[in-house]
């Protein structure tokens, strides 16, 4: 499904990356543990409740560039700047991580393993 469809499904806000909303997403990974994100060989969309500059830095290193921040966590200016430098998409939504994962799974987004 496209990022635009994900935004609609999750009732999310696009914090950055408006220009990439028509891109397709196939896989997602959910974690608050950045150490876990750093072990991924693939590059899924990240669903996370960890909202700080290290979230973005970790995604940069792990070459993940689409992030869904759950539970209305505040995406800060320094996060946005770093995300912009790396042409990332950040979506923010109010739903819990469990609900976000459930909705996306039901809509056909696949897990990595």
């Amino acid at each position, binding site marked *: 499904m496209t990022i635009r469809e994900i935004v609609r499904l999750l009732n999310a806000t696009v914090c950055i990356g408006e220009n990439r909303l028509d891109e397709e997403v196939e896989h997602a990974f959910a974690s608050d*543990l950045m150490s876990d994100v*750093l072990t991924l060989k693939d590059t899924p969309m990240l669903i996370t409740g960890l909202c*700080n500059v*290290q979230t973005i830095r*970790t995604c940069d*290193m792990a070459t993940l560039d689409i992030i869904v921040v759950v539970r209305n966590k505040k995406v800060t200016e*320094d996060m946005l700047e770093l995300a912009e430098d790396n042409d990332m998409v950040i979506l923010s939504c109010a739903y819990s991580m469990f609900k976000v994962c459930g909705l996306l799974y039901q809509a056909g987004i696949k897990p990595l393993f």
Partner: protein
Amino acid sequence: MHQEYTVIEGDFVNAGKASSSVKKTLKQLNVDPTIVKRVVVALYEAEVNAIAHAYGGKVLVDIESDKIKMVVADKGPGIPDIALAMQEGYSTARPEVRDMGFGAGMGLPNMQKNVDKLNVTSEVGVGTTVEMEVNF
């Protein structure tokens, strides 16, 4: 090509700046993206470790035609038992480190998985040096 960076104790906001800069350089040099990812993930893990566990240190990077050599040398408490620290899940991280999404005892094992050569030397009360090499 030689690059040097300074790592400051507890400076989580800047954790990853060295890795990010190395990533840009390797991309400019047209290094295979799979190799770039292995390099920067390993270096980032080492950088976070130096910030989280030590009192700061240096990151030294040498890019050669066929490989990259990275040294992360910190001044810090050192690692009393390196074999134990290499075990997945073993961690001495403070809550502050865990709040940043790290400290799960996965850093050193993940470095080992991503590099072709890893050498960790440490002296208690002095510091730790992590040397890594990735072939292009």
